[in-house]
């Protein structure tokens, strides 16, 4: 009777959880409803976790003596893992968000891999089909775990340079083949109980070692600029692994949630790659950056024309319209708050101000939107590339802060450039362009920016936050009355 009740309870709660996940993600598709969306999904998660303790009424005979200990372990693991991660998620700075997502994603992949390991070591798969699925989930989960950790290390600066060896792709392919071969051997050997070269647990260890190595080897050669795409891929991988392990455990909530994330992650990856004008395979298999460094630049006409922060600030105060193009350099100097203070000052003087955000501004698509939102900028002042690109031509001033490649006109004109074809913000069409930059260095792609040499462009050198403070002082110093 208790078993029946626990089955009904888990079934009903998991059904509700699956619905709440879908509904929650649906609500996340608009900034207005998004906060309630994550809350709805959170309720689904909470009830599903609570209901999963009903499994205690239906454990196998072999595990029954361990049940009190296992229950205790489960509570400790939940409190410990959940508590530490919650604390980390609350503390982390918004600029460090991509690597945090990478860590949490790796944890999910690791959990899926660990579930598969329990099934494998316990020899619990009921047949060859289930065994194949378990191994597949284990492979994808383990790759996601080790790959995400490398992605974290790269974004956090622990690993600075892409590690590239000649013939690496071939070697990685061989490791993948080896992993699959070990998996096939495990399936065949457990089917006909033939004499083993090594004990079965040993083969399982080898399988996981190969899968973990594969994740590391795959991620090492990829440059830091491409990490967001990689994290998105691993996010989809983890979803896939969770969905597959859900099948192995016969749990439809895991199957649905995992597969929804698998598909959503794949689409998100494609969207990101598209915004960078590259294909997903291009991100994974080619060494971006090398091309740019060996490519010879064409002759640049004109010269750099530096100007003082105060002069640039005053020019903007007397303009009718300003479009601001923020980049990661702004986030590095933590200048978002000062920027919004400056914007409010301009708005008080009747200047129309808009933000133009490139799809890949920041270290992760959409991260710049989050950073601006953190500073208090209302999201209806923030415009995406396709919505604002036509307006630069009729705008008095374009202010570029900490952005570089996303406003490089070479993407439109120079066919030999590494970023040719990438959609850019047409900041160069504005009547006057100010570029706030720390020095004369190149952008992430390592390409000289022709815009900086254009007749209508002036450079303001300095740390973004320091420059903005000077601009604010200069505009305040004018003592102009605010326009009501």
């Amino acid at each position, binding site marked *: 009777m208790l078993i029946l009740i626990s*089955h*009904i309870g888990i*079934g009903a709660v998991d059904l509700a959880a699956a619905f709440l996940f879908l509904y929650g*993600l649906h609500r996340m*598709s*608009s*900034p207005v409803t*998004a*906060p309630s969306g*994550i*809350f709805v*999904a*959170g309720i689904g998660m909470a009830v*599903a*976790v609570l209901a*999963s*303790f009903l499994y*205690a009424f239906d454990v*196998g005979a072999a595990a029954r003596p361990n049940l009190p200990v*296992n229950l205790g*372990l*489960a509570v*400790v693991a*939940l409190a*410990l*893992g*959940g508590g530490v*991660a*919650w604390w*980390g*998620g609350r503390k982390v700075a918004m600029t460090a*968000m991509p690597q945090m*997502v990478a860590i949490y*994603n790796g944890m999910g992949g690791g*959990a899926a891999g*660990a*579930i598969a*390991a*329990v099934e494998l*070591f316990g020899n619990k798969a009921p047949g060859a089909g289930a065994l194949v699925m378990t191994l597949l989930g284990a492979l994808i989960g383990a790759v996601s775990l080790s790959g995400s950790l490398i992605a974290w290390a790269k974004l956090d600066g622990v690993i600075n340079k892409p590690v590239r060896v000649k013939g690496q792709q071939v070697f990685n392919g061989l490791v993948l083949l080896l992993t699959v071969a070990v998996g096939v051997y495990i399936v065949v050997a457990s089917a006909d109980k033939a004499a083993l070269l090594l004990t079965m647990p040993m083969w399982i260890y080898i399988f996981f070692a190969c899968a973990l190595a594969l994740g590391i080897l795959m991620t090492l050669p990829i440059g830091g600029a491409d990490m967001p795409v990689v994290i998105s891929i691993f*996010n989809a991988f983890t979803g896939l692994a*969770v969905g597959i392990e859900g*099948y192995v455990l016969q749990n439809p909530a895991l*199957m649905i949630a995992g*597969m929804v*994330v698998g598909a*959503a992650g794949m*689409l*998100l990856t494609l969207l990101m790659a598209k*915004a960078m004008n590259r294909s997903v395979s291009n991100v994974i298999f080619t060494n971006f950056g090398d091309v740019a460094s060996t490519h010879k630049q064409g002759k640049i006409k004109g010269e750099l024309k530096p100007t003082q922060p105060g002069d640039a600030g005053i020019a903007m105060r007397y303009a009718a319209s300003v479009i601001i193009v923020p980049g990661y350099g702004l986030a590095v100097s933590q200048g978002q708050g000062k920027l919004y203070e400056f914007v*409010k000052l301009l708005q008080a003087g*009747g*200047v129309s*101000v808009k933000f133009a*955000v490139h799809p890949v501004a920041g270290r992760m698509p*959409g991260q710049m*939107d989050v950073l601006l939102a953190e500073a*208090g900028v209302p999201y*209806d002042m*923030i415009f995406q590339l396709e919505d604002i690109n036509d307006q630069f031509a009729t705008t008095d001033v374009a202010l570029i802060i900490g952005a570089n490649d996303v406003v490089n006109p070479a993407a439109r004109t120079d066919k030999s450039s590494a970023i040719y074809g990438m959609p850019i913000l047409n900041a160069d069409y504005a009547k006057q362009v100010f570029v706030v930059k720390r020095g004369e260095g190149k952008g992430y792609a390592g390409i000289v920016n022709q815009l900086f040499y254009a007749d209508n462009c002036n450079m303001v050198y300095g740390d973004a936050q320091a420059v903005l403070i000077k601009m604010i002082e200069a505009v305040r110093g004018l003592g102009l009355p605010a326009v009501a």
Partner: protein
Amino acid sequence: MDFQISISGFVALYIFMLAAFAGWVIIGRVPAILHTPLMSGSNFVHGIVVVGGIYALLNASTVQEQVIGFFAVLLGAGNAAGGYAVTDRMLAMFKTSGHPAGHGGHGKTGTVKSIHVKKH
């Protein structure tokens, strides 16, 4: 009537297909401004793996299974709790000009009016 769920073969494929389609359609409508919160939000959703971890741990019969099961729950719980904390924090920051969160925004209605709210 048996309430023990049994999913095999084509039933599993149907579930996977419909779930994948749902995920694809839902994400396809999300504006670029929400891409980072969304990646984090979908990251949270696969934290449901913790439920599978609890199942595996409760059914562990050897010390080895207990240790691995413990890590499954530990990592899964981290995925779920961390994903929620980060996503919730990010989404709470999105505000409209109508409701600026204590950052002022009054006395300049002329400019604010000229900025139309985007429709996606």
